């Protein structure tokens, strides 16, 4: 956390997802960085720890599942939220086994993801106090 602000990385190869989420989350006081390519996002994650990572699963190149595995390996306490348009029980199960915080099927409402983010934030803040 920088200046007590929660940092969020968003990775989705469809630009509209970041375009829609970023301003809305910034307005709520989060520090947001967005990526449409998983390699670039991975490079950034290696430089900087994010409190929350939001990622799609199906992408060109490095898949979302591989990406989130890397993230969790680097920073076990980073909360990962998966958003996907190809939600199946298997992918959900696999993601949870990797220790993600929550799983949202696209399309979802803005309010749904913000409440998931708020819950993740609460968890992060209570962890950092204890």
């Amino acid at each position, binding site marked *: 956390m920088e200046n007590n602000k929660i940092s969020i990385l968003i990775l989705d190869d*469809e630009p*509209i997802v970041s375009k829609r989420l970023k*301003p*809305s989350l910034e*307005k709520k006081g989060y520090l*947001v960085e967005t990526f449409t390519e998983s390699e670039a996002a991975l490079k950034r994650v290696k430089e900087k720890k994010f409190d929350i990572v939001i990622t799609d699963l199906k992408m060109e190149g490095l898949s979302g599942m591989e990406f989130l595995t890397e993230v969790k390996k680097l920073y076990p306490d980073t909360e990962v939220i998966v958003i996907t348009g190809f939600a199946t029980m298997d992918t959900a199960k696999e993601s949870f086994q990797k220790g993600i915080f929550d799983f949202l099927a*696209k399309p979802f*409402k*803005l309010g749904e993801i913000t409440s998931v983010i708020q819950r993740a934030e609460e968890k992060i803040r209570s962890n950092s106090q204890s």
Partner: protein
Amino acid sequence: MLHGETGRMFDRAINWAKNLVNSSGRSSASGLSFINTFTRFREILAINNQSLELIADANDKLSGEYIFDTHYIETTCIKISSLVEKLIFALDEMAPGKYLALHDAFNRIHYDIEDILAGRQPRSENRLIIPYSDINRDMGDEVGGKNATLAQVGNFMGIRIPNGFAATAVAFARYMEQDGLGEKIKQITDSWENDEIDSRAASSRIQPLILATKIPADLRTEISAAAAAIKKRTGKKKIFFAVRSSAWGEDSEHSFAGQYSSILNVPASKLCEAYKKVIASAYSASALEYRRRIGYTEKEVIMPVGFQQMLNPMCSGVLYTYDPVAPAREVMIATSTWGLGAPVVSGTAAVDEFYMEREPPHRVVQTKITAKLQALVQAENGGTKVIDIPENRQMVSSLTKEQLSELADTGLLIEKNFRKPQDIEFGFTHEGELTILQTRPLALKSFNAPSASELAAIKDRYKVIKEHCGTTAQDGIATGPVHIIHSDDDLKNFPPGAILVTKFASPKLASVLHMAAAVITEVGSVTGHLATVAREYRVPALFNCENITTILKERQEITLDAEEPAIYEGVVKELKYYALSEEEIGETYEYRLLRRVLKKIEPLNLVDPTEKNFRPEACQTLHDIIRFVHEKAVQTIVDQGYYHPHDPDTAAGKLKLGVPMDLVVIDIGGGLAEDIETGKKAIIKPEQIRSVPMKALIQGITNPKAWTNEPVPVDMGSFMSSLTRTFSAEITSPRELGQNLAVISLEYANVSLRLGYHFTMIDTYISDNMNDNYAYFRFFGGVTDDARRARRARFIGAVLSHYDFRIDLHGDLVVARLKKLDKEAMLKRVYLLGLLIGVTRQLDVRMVNEQRVKEYTQNLIELLEDGYGKQQNQHTYTGR
């Protein structure tokens, strides 16, 4: 049919019926036994419903509240398309070979959708010329951005624009095919791109080539016809046009300002020449250089063209809705001169300058009147000429105070609709009428978008009037004075730019929505009519905000953030600038794509089966096909089960009810008394019905109180005036369009009704075994005013959810499901469905305001609780 469990229950009911009548081996002339036909029919009903729900869901996504991507759009289109295809096949099984033309209709629409998804012009949309009246903002690819935005201003904001039409991108492509013109141009631009020749040389070779190439005959004919149509409409002897470029990419992040030509005052006979000149202007040396500089490739040059009837203006000019170099000053800048506006635009003439406050009443803070020695005006036989201005007019302000104020209001309205500062070309006629000639986004050079931390700290710095209240019907941020609507009178003289605050999301508000900065209501449905209109106009809308009409004061300045949602006191500058600097989400590719595909899916054009155009060939959307299949499926069932029965194991007749409703009943096992006479002329009396659910339904339907013909309420007069023509037919006599049908067995009933323009479907199974019991109800409105239909749908939803039905509301579509109640409880609820059928028949005409929804809900619940027992006594319910 019905998903999952209910479907299995139905199968059980059908099997049971099959065994009972032992009819599995027999078949009708069409090759299917009635039971089989009926099974197909139920499949159609189920798919019909699934597809309507998918369509309604897709529309909801446009509110800005959802995060969706192209993958969603593609899969939704595939799902809806494949459901519609299934419908067509199911109908073909019911009536083999009878509606083959549906396949063509489906393919035509389906290919269009595929084209749109692939980013191509839909192959059926091959119009060369489109009148402005048929254009909206989403048609930028087809007619170019300039034409699309101007037409949007005229068609959706009620602002005057010139009569006109567009020559499309398709027309441009056709012209480029003529004599290999496009190929020849490409060779030259290729050698320019390879630096073999310079831009001037390229231009001097390309432009004569274009001017020497003949315009294809059909395009020529269509241009003349479109001009002639305008001439006829205006009743003028001679009309002249401004012919203007509307190229792809113009007015986008690159303005292309001054790169492409406009040709003024062209007589109708010379439009084709002017068209060529405008196309040729795309290949001026400076245009070539400009494109190279901004990295715009030559193959992206696609130029639709606008033809606008010339205005004979007293004065013309340009309005900026912000000062581009000092936006924080909150002023607008107008410049103008006598006569035509070209000198103002090109910056070649002395012009008057006005700075006025953005806030109404737009006090003029700075005026500069320049000596206007000359003016550009129309020459009598075409073209323009320069005239001298008499000395006594040279120093007269070319715009009056009133004109400035009207101009400023109009500018704000346009800005509000496009949600970006605007650069607007205008003219005032000699009669003093303001006409908008062009509008495009205005780039603000030193615009400081607020930082994230500024935004996050807003709540500490501004007073929050209300937050986390209500539901967002349309996203967005708005600032402005509150205008509270208590009665219809308050709608008159609605102050442009005000925030509309009222109790109910009444459809009447739609008439002023294009002027409102935002709308906040205490009651309203996000899938209702007003929400749809708010989405169409992108007016931020917050519904179900408790007591807001008493919390806010008339003329109080507030800021609404519909996304949060939160209402702040005063103008929250950070949010306001944030909204202006943010990319408008409704204008992103995905939203445009969804709107474009929905146009091929959602609108319903086929309504009345007695109309001549009720044919597969007339289907323009997938919804049309859905509607057509449904109608023909009912017809086939009635035909096969009643008019031409072939299956000896079914019995049929017309049910005689005490209410004005014809109903064909087909019994597939134990639903009718055994001694009954059946056949084409057979009349069935209610007491001869043995079907348990059908009896309950009939009791409800025939409750005389549900069919009262009380006089039309007094306020109907004004109400009626806003209605569509078709509406009168509905209230005078609920016309039966097509056939009412009930297919029944002892414990089962499937009822399709069409009263007036409402479609009702009930599917229910009621036995002593509680676990098998279910009832499914679907109600869908017809052609009349969306708002009342939506309200009626909410009324039905309110009543049914009071009695434990699970409700899905999508606009005017109501789906209610109920299962696993004991027999008595089920019967009471099916009786309620019967009551609803009677009541809703004419209910929408009484749904004049939201209050009525509550009243009628209460009345109907009382009617049920009173009437159910009593009527039962009358009819001495005997079970089986």
